[in-house]
């Protein structure tokens, strides 16, 4: 959590889209911005890019108010995927409440996915977060391309870890909202445990997620 201001009755949450370079993190956010139509959706800020590559991050903020009056701001960030921007990745990852790992489905990108995930593990440790506890969702993007890892193989690899995995195509829009919903739900649960969102603030998970997305959830919990 970025901050919790009791005086102002406000909490600021952070979700991070992590993953190797060019795996589609920014496209995920752009898509999300297009697809979601919620009241509290803020402007999408795409910070200085160079040749269309992210240098700092992209930011899509959401704002909602719980029945209790608790103001919740949820900020969704992307990290720069290029190896050289590791310092920025660490900075962005700091105090994250949930992480989406965007993997590139192309067969040629397996090594990059692996390296990036290892980098995520390292950096989570670096900023003092426990990868076992941080809400984590994996998305295999670019399902619309050829020469991609078979879904069965992905399931076989990730199934035993218990980490939710989504197939997506940021370009076509499939799986984008689902990924976000899943992470939002997981993040809600983790925050609820500590801040009793449901009990004290009258905000249940479904409402939380629906308020963010502006639509009824596509999948159950």
């Amino acid at each position, binding site marked *: 959590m*970025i*901050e919790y201001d009791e005086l102002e009755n*406000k909490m*600021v949450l*952070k979700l991070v889209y992590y993953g190797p370079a060019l795996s589609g993190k920014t496209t995920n956010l752009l898509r999300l911005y297009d697809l979601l139509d919620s009241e*509290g*959706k*803020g*402007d999408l*800020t795409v*910070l*200085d890019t160079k040749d269309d590559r992210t240098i*700092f*991050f992209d*930011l899509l*903020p*959401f*704002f909602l108010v719980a029945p209790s009056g608790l*103001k919740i*701001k949820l*900020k969704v*960030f992307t990290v720069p995927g290029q190896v050289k921007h590791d*310092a*920025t990745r*660490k*900075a*962005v990852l*700091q*105090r994250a409440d949930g992480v989406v790992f965007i993997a590139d489905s192309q067969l040629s990108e397996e090594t990059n996915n692996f390296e990036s995930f290892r980098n995520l593990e390292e950096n989570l440790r670096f900023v003092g977060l426990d990868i076992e506890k941080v809400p984590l969702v994996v998305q295999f993007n670019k399902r619309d391309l050829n020469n991609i890892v078979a879904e069965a193989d992905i399931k076989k690899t990730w199934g035993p870890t218990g980490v939710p995995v989504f197939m997506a195509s940021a370009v076509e829009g499939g799986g984008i909202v689902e990924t976000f919903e899943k992470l939002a739900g997981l993040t809600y649960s983790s925050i609820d445990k500590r801040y009793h969102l449901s009990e004290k603030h009258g905000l249940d998970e479904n409402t939380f997620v629906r308020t963010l997305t502006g639509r009824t959830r596509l999948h159950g919990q």
Partner: protein
Amino acid sequence: MDNEYIIGSDVKLKDVLREADAMQLLQNAAKAGASYGAVEDAEGEILCHFGPSPDGHVFNIKKPFYLEGEIAGYVVIKGDGANGPVLKAVGEAAYDALNIVLKSNHRSLLATETHRTVINRSYEELLQTCNMLKESEIKYRDLAENLERQVSRRNEELKQAHAKLLHQEKIVSIGQLAAGIAHEINNPLGYILSNINTLKQYSAKMKEMLAFFRDTLSKTEVSDADREAANRKWLQYKLDHVLSDVDDLIRESIGGAERVKKIVSDLRGFSHIDETHKADADINAEIDRTLSVLAHEIPGDAGVVRDYRPLPPFTCDPAGICQAFFNIILNSLQTGKEGLKLVIETRCVDDHIIILFSDNGPGIPEKIINRIFDPFFTTKEVGKGTGMGLNVTHEIVTSYGGTVNVESRAGEGATFIITLPVNTKQKPQIKKEE
């Protein structure tokens, strides 16, 4: 670390909207005839405004503006109804402009803070890395320098050891040659001596017989002619002289042969070809042996004075200790000084054997006296001296825990002083690192 900027920290309106910027936007509304304009934050606090009391105006717009999806504040424009449409348009324009300014400021704030955070952190990391690199560089440089020093020292040691080995091998092969020759000489010398001794006895018998003949002849009746002939023969062969000389000849021959025998024996002793192990040596005898081997080097006009005192036995490798003396004595003999006088004194003082070699040679110039024990240091012509002689002496003497020093002044001769500790039953000391 607690105060550092966390990416995503909520920003306040004041952080992204400067009063002057907001005021400038409101000025347009004022120009268009609005009587009041204000920018308020979400709580209704006025950030900036113009115009008097906000009450009782016909035209009144209050439009919220957003930051990150949350209402950040309001634009308020008030005026009379007369130019309502114009004010509305101006109000919209001010609102749009405000939004643009807000977004752009927000973006640049995010970028700046992120940049600062990343740069600061990277800078600290770089600083750390730099310090670590510096430390390891120092370590490696030390190592490298040491390595060079060590390599060059080992090289030097190897060179010296090699030269010493060569020198010793030379001495050993000379010794072996000498011993071989000595052995070959010994055999014929044996029968020469034996034969001469036998010849001496035979000669004595013949002399006696001749005397008997002469005596008998004088007493016997022989013709004058015969007597005359015998006398003539006697004189002709100069037998008086022969008889008186033959003993001397034989004695001298025996003496010469004995001398050869002694030289051969000394040569064998010097090379210690028969002894490869340590033995209790008499230093005086070893010096004598060395001198006899060097006899041919002693110039005719030179005098060697031996001033020996009885010495306790010294446990050593006699061949080695002879070498040590050899090198000092040879240097003295080769100075080329006319009327050279070499005095060799031996003493035993408090468990120490002290040997002094003093000569009246040209002495050693002050500027080289500190270097004479250094390996490869030589004053001889290139190819004549190895520069190893005194170094070998030094090595041998120190290996027995002894010392070798020199006292000399140019033109006033030189004295080499060897001190050997008597109680050397223990193993010779290994040469220590300087």
